[in-house]
Every structure is written in structure tokens, then in C-alpha cells.
């Protein structure tokens, strides 16, 4: 194979890549926060909000989890303008990632809630706790502790999946890769460097989640 790797042109554009990586991180963190907040809310509603809340949120979860993120993104970015809602690429990406992430976190946190022993909830009822108090003091913390490892892996998948939003021209890491590719005609070198940046972000997140899990949950005793 007579090919000489030339990374010079890629390294010369490191500032652009850093900017793209920063947007990737911002988008991912925003989607994670939205996913955690809405996922918790939806999971609680599914478990305690009656039959219709359960069905409605269940339908949303199944619709999102059984269709590709790419199609969801196209519906938001190309579909919504035809009904009068035009979004800029970054907003569309953020909404798409959040809507997608929340469906998965709902399911993960719900299985955490189901892992809370029935007896504890019944005991709290017998002590005249209101449903809100039961959720706040009895259910939520153990549920999130059970859900934490799965949430961590899901959040990493969200970050990796954010590369897809380059298709609606949100200028994140992969999109910067596209730009450099057409400028340098060195696609392989460009995408190697981009991949290494993704790996670095993913490993950092992995360590961060492991640390958070330990410092947040470990000190507070067993379930």
C-alpha cells in the first residue's frame, strides 16, 4: 500500500476541531440533563400517574425506541418547517437528542422504580405518607441508584449518537470533520483524529460516571 499518511493539515485545524468537540460536549450534556429530568418525570408518571399517563408515555417511549434517531431528526429539522416551525440546526439537534434520550432514560428509571420493594411503598402508605412523599422519600433515590449504571452507558451512547446531527448541518465534531475532509482531501487522517477525540470524550465520560456513581451513591448505605 503506497500511501503516505499526512496529519499536518489536520493538526493545523485543531482549533476548528476543538470548537466542534465543544459543541458536541454541550449538546450531549444538555441532552443528558433533559433526558434525566424528563426521564425521571415520565417514569414517575408512568408508575404513579394512572392508566392514561402510563399508556401515553408508553406509546412515546415505544415510538422513539423502535425508530432510528436519524429519521426522528429529519422529521424535526425538515418536517417541522412545513407546518410553520423552522428551527436552526443546533436547536433541532438539541430537541432531537433530548426527545430521543428521554425515551430511553424513562424506561431505565422505570425499571429502577420497579426494583423498589413493594413492601416499602406499602409500609409508607400505612404510615400515611402521601404519594408525593412516597415518591420523594421512598422511591426516587433507590430507583436512581439501581438505574445509575445503565443511565451512564445510555448517556455515552447519546454522546456517540450526536455525530449523526452533522447530517442536519449542526457544526459539531463530525461536521467539522466533513469540512476538513473537503478542504484537505485527507478524509482518512481527518476521521482518525475525529475518532480519537470521540474516544477521549467517551473515556472521560466513563470515568466521570463511575466516579459520580461512587461518590453519590456508595456512601449512603445499601439498598
Amino acid at each position, binding site marked *: *500500500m503506497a*500511501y503516505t499518511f499526512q496529519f499536518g493539515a489536520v493538526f493545523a485545524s485543531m482549533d476548528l476541531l476543538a470548537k466542534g468537540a465543544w459543541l458536541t460536549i454541550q449538546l450531549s450534556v444538555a441532552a443528558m440533563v433533559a433526558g434525566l429530568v424528563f426521564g425521571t418525570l415520565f417514569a414517575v408518571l408512568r408508575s404513579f400517574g394512572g392508566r392514561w399517563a402510563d399508556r401515553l408515555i408508553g406509546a412515546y417511549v*415505544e*415510538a422513539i*425506541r*423502535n*425508530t*432510528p*434517531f*436519524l*429519521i*426522528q431528526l*429529519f*422529521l424535526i429539522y*425538515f*418536517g417541522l418547517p*412545513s*407546518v410553520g416551525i423552522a428551527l436552526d440546526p443546533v436547536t433541532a439537534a438539541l430537541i432531537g437528542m433530548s426527545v430521543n434520550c428521554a425515551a430511553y432514560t424513562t424506561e431505565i428509571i422505570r425499571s429502577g422504580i420497579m426494583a423498589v420493594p413493594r413492601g416499602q411503598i406499602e409500609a409508607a402508605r400505612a404510615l400515611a405518607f402521601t404519594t408525593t412523599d412516597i415518591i420523594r422519600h421512598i422511591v426516587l433515590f433507590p430507583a436512581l441508584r439501581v438505574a445509575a449504571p445503565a443511565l451512564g452507558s445510555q448517556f*455515552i451512547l447519546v454522546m*456517540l*449518537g*450526536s*455525530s*449523526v446531527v*452533522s*447530517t442536519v448541518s449542526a457544526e459539531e465534531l*463530525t461536521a467539522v*470533520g466533513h469540512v476538513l475532509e473537503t478542504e484537505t482531501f485527507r*478524509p*482518512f487522517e481527518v*476521521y*482518525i483524529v*475525529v*475518532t480519537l477525540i*470521540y*474516544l477521549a470524550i*467517551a*473515556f472521560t465520560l*466513563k470515568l466521570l460516571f463511575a466516579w459520580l456513581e461512587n461518590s453519590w451513591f456508595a456512601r449512603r448505605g445499601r439498598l
Partner: protein
Amino acid sequence: MRSFGTPEFLFMLQAARWTVILSLIAYLGGGALGAVLAFMRVSGNRFASGFARVWILLFQCTPLLMLLFLVFFGLALTGYGQNAYVAVTVALSCYAGAYFGEIWRGALEAVPQGQWQASAALGFSRYEQFRHVIVPQSVRIAIPPTVGFMVQVIKNTSLASIIGFQELTQAAQFVNNLTFQPISVYLVAAAVYFILCFPLTLLSRRLEKKLHVDRPSPVAA
């Protein structure tokens, strides 16, 4: 300008065939690779196990889209030209292999150690222990998450459209460019994906209940 009608719908359905074929390729390639990786992880050989661990870690932390690009453009460097078929096959197999490998490793390790020891005590060779005692028990544990991951593979074949492969998503984009009816076109595409994925989701959930895998084995360690 065309409107979105039956011919366009049939065109998308025909392209959906490629979504199915790509998924099957990923199951075969990824399944074979995953089996090897899972076997290496539990082989007891430190180098094989370490290699498989690093492989799985790297591929689980790389965006599938980057994997597709790297194979696609890497292939061009070797002089075979830009071949979307080969690129998608290789990338999807490597990706699915890493996840299958991790799922199956977990299933193999969930079989209690005592099972290895008991079959060793009965005079089984290491291979026979693996083949006749450990694998049959771990299959039960492995099936629900495996089916669950198969859904992810179907959805992720949509990324092949980005490197120009003519499957369902690419066909939807094409039809949308003709008709400018993004909502109907992409909703139909979403519906087709849903029809492919949802039965597998239900199956995975049913198997999970039936095989009762939250308790790894009735035989206590």
C-alpha cells in the same frame, strides 16, 4: 412536482429490503465476531482476553458513523475504491460484534463457577465443559438482551444512508427531494422501521419474562 403516492411508497418498501439485508449481514458478521470475542474473554488466556477487552472497549466508544467513514475511506486507500457495500458490511459487523461479544461474555460469566468445577470433576475437558455445560446454560441468559440489541442494529443501518448506501433512509431522502412532503415521507419511513423493530422488542420482553433472567440461574453458586 410529484406527490407522495403509491409508486413512491413502493420504492421505499423496495429499499427497506436493503435495511433487512444489512441487518442480517450485521447479525451474521457481528455474531461470528462476537462469539470469538466472548470466547476470548472467558478463555483464561491473558492475551486473548486482554485483546478482546480492548477491542470491545474501543468499538463501544467509537461512533458508528466514524466507523463507517474510517472503513469507507480506509478502503479507498488500499486501492479497492470507494465501495459502500463492503464498507457497510465491515463497519456494521465490527460494531455489532463488539456489543454481541460483551452481551455474551456477561452471559457466560453469569453461569456459576461451580458449574465449571463440577464438570471438571466429572472428567470433562476444558472444551467439553464449555461446550456441554456452560454454553447451554448461558444461552438462556443471553437471548433476551441479544434480541434487544438486534433492534439497535436495524435502526443503526439507517446510518449507511450517510455514506450513500441505498437503503430505507436514503430512499426516504430521495422521495422527499422529489415530493417536498417531509412529514409524510419520514413518518412512513419511521412506520416501516417500527414494523421491523417492534416485534423484536416485544419478543425480547416476552423472553425476558419467560426465561426469568433477572435471576441468573436456579442453581446457586
